[in-house]
């Protein structure tokens, strides 16, 4: 496909930061593209976008929970609330792929109902491409692009039980959406299976008593201080159907963002996501033997967190270290 190629990486990055939709779409396609030439360009682009390591832009929010809890519908309501507040929003919506064909039906857009006139919203659907953890490998690189062009990046993933751990490792703020009447969330929380989110939401409050009951059960099951420290996890009731509780949820998300900013934790956290992503990719490709060869998980993560961020370059360097024979195509 022949989208006009930006002259230089710098121009490309500038267009993305300016919110040029064609450029953003092109960048996302590029990051998805596994061909050598594309990877070379992508490496350069990401390096450029990650230049300013000290002042990370935007807020990266993960929204997860069981299928049907109303994550997409709630996201639509949040998008409207954010737009009213003048914030530009990008969404990465991840759906599972078919284990048989590898194909996927990406259905979240339907509920998001974005307008064709509003340039402040951009939605990309992704299939998890068979990957464990409900997230596809493209989520973190694509987030980097979206964070450059938007104030808020929202990642929707299906999370049941252990599955939402992944998104929690890649987001500034994690929001878990529970389904009224389903005891699962409470059980998972109690058993420690569910990573404690920063914000817990019981959606469909319009369902009445059953929602209220789930709300109080969750509040009781939850140790209200987040393991990150200094953050009391709010348990909120929303109804995406009739619009109640949305502003309060947007406020809570904003508050958490401000906490991270005021404590200057964003930069470290983002490095953490990158380290996590790199570790996970290498683990998938080379197994735990590979990770051992690189010094073991702990040391590897520490090493990565101390490096300057340059996603694909770091990745290639580690592969080189493991197998010096691999051609470094991106040098």
């Amino acid at each position, binding site marked *: *496909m*022949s*989208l006009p190629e930006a002259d230089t990486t710098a121009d490309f990055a500038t267009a993305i930061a300016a919110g040029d939709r064609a450029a953003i779409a092109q960048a996302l*396609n590029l990051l998805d593209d596994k061909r050598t030439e594309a990877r070379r360009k992508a490496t350069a682009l990401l390096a450029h976008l990650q230049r300013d390591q000290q002042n990370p832009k935007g807020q990266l929010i993960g929204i997860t929970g069981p299928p049907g809890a109303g994550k997409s519908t709630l996201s639509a309501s949040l998008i409207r609330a954010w737009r009213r507040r003048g914030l530009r929003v990008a969404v990465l919506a991840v759906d599972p792929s*078919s284990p*048989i064909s590898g*194909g996927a*039906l990406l259905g979240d857009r*339907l509920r998001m109902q974005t307008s064709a006139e509003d340039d402040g919203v951009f939605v990309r659907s992704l299939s998890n491409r068979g990957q464990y953890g409900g997230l596809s490998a493209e989520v973190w690189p694509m987030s980097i692009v979206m964070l450059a062009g938007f104030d808020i990046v929202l990642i929707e993933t299906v999370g049941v039980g252990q599955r939402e751990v992944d998104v929690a490792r890649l987001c500034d703020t994690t929001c878990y959406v529970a389904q009224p009447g389903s005891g699962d969330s409470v059980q998972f929380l109690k058993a420690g299976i569910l990573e404690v989110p920063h914000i817990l939401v019981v959606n469909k409050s319009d369902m009445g008593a059953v929602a209220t009951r789930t709300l109080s059960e969750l509040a009781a099951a939850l140790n209200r201080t987040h393991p990150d420290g200094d953050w009391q996890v709010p348990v909120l009731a929303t109804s995406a159907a009739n619009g109640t509780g949305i502003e309060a949820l947007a406020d809570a998300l904003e508050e958490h963002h401000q906490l991270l900013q005021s404590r200057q934790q964003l930069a470290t956290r983002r490095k953490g996501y990158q380290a996590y992503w790199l570790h996970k990719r290498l683990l998938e490709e080379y197994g735990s033997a590979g990770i051992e060869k690189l010094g073991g998980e702990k040391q590897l993560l520490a090493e990565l967190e101390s490096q300057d961020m340059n996603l694909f370059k770091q990745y290639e360097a580690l592969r080189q270290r493991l197998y010096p024979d691999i051609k470094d195509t991106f040098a």
Partner: protein
Amino acid sequence: MSQDTVKRDRPWLMRTYSGHSSASASNELYRTNLGRGQTGLSVAFDLPTQTGYDSDHPLAHGEVGKVGVPINHIGDMEALFDQIPLEQMNTSMTINATAPWLLALYVAVAERQGVDPAQLQGTTQNDVLKEYLSRGTYIFPPEPSVRLTTDLIAYTVQNIPRWNPTNICSYHLQEAGATPTQELAYALSTATAILDAVQASGQIPPDRFTDVVGRISFFVNAGIRFVEETCKLRAFSRMWDTLTSERYGVTDPKQRRFRYGVQVNSLGLTESQPENNVQRIVLEMLSVTLSKNARARAIQLPAWNEALGLPRPWDQQWALRMQQVLALETDLLEYGDLLDGSPVVEAKVQELIDGAHEEMARVEAHGGMVACIDNGYIKRELVQSHTRRIRNIESGELQIVGVNCYQESAESPLTAGEESGIMKVDEKAEREQIESLKAFRASRDKDKVEAALQQLRRAADDGSNIMPASIECARAGVTTGEWSEVLRNVFGEYRAPTGIDISPMEHGDSAALEGVRNRVRKTGEELGRPLRLLIGKPGLDGHSNGAEQIAVKGRDAGFEIVYEGIRLTPAQIARAAQEEGVHLIGLSVLSGSHLELVQEIIQELKKIGASGIPLVIGGIIPEEDAKILQAQGLKAVFTPKDVDMNTIMNSMVTIIRDANGLEAAA
């Protein structure tokens, strides 16, 4: 027995579903048809009228007067029934989301003709639940839609007692793939959901509630398996009788009677060897007439050229004559019920009843009929059934003459003619309609219009019956778009689930599918990322079957599919294609507005810098239009003749390869 001593039953009502171009053109058609012995009117409205837009709304572009008549205001409605005395007419209106409005216009026209509205006879389809499941002309979310439905029912039962306020439709469900059991279950679940809502609204005094039950009628389908279909109708009668007596305590057997009209199956009518459709239609008609105790009250038949495009007057006349031959020439109407007492029939009926009860219980378990719209349960079941049907046609398990067997044919004189055997809608119609609408708007008393709209807004807000305010609007010269806009603002708009998120079919795999899958995967690898396909339904067209089946098949072939359902604007489709980074856009248009819509999409893509994405289209596209579209750059045009889904998938892969400079084979 000699001919003249035989007592014959009165034949059913014979209708032809029609309307096109403009109110006056349709009026002429109606009067011709009535002259030819048609005994009732069946009005087809165009899609803007059905979805609440005036003819000059941007979304109406290309759709005005195409598949039905445009009705914007009382002037149009008056022209539609010019010289047709409404007190003598039995008028059926296929209208749903805007049913209260079209009935209001009908009442206002009756008043102008000097007819007492209480005398009016006819039907408003007014069954919005099946719109979400199949037909697609819904506007508001399910709950306010149910309220509008019940308002119309409550109003007519009290003020227009001979009106059939709702026609619960299983017809459209079969057209979306439903099995006989599903038809029974969903139609009866809908009927109880609506009756329960009327009861709960408190608008009808308890002692008059059985009158409401007695006014409920049905609109069903009859497919080619005509023995089973006859049994289905007997099952319907029996289940309705039990249900009305047990659930609503109706004691008068007349009020428990299953009254229904029919349109026979059109989904099975083919583009290849279209003359065979005549046999199909006749056999299907038998299934709803054979059993006297479950005989249809009204029948309308599609024409032989159903899958080609809109029928011409002659095609419709032929369909009407089929009914007349059956009713007048054969001895069918001389006998009592032919099937009573047959153990074979009895066993089949019982099997259908049992199956329907089980499915109705599942609907209840999923929260009831209204909840099942939004949670997608029923839509998924329908898509699943349709997928099964298509797989059976592909595998040859389901034989369709001229389609997957006996394909060879001598050249047909029916389609050889100049105009390729279909009706061409007058191209000036849209422009003229818009001009007359503008003139009408200019001539109204603005204050009266504003006051009537205020009253409507209040009624919508405070929950009082919507009909009186709507009739006031009709008298004041409010337009269809204005009426709908007020309600859109109060109730909001809705997008229904697509139902495509079904599990891959058991036994869905074949060597051919395996071959496509390999090509999809391999091409994805060569292009650096998995193949992504956007399926787009632009415009007001609600025909979703094709898009759904292509989506499901595409997923099973390994594509990543983006499909957001029906009724998107060209701008929305172009945007989604760009945001999602798809390799190909596949449009599906069956309503006839493909030329306008494709052009707009090409422009939108250009505008946003995404014109590199290749486009294909499928649907009802006449051959000459296909040539025009290909000249505009579309890479392929698929029509109902293209029944092999694997071949379609393969062509799409080839198009993607070609657009990206890869050689065709992979």
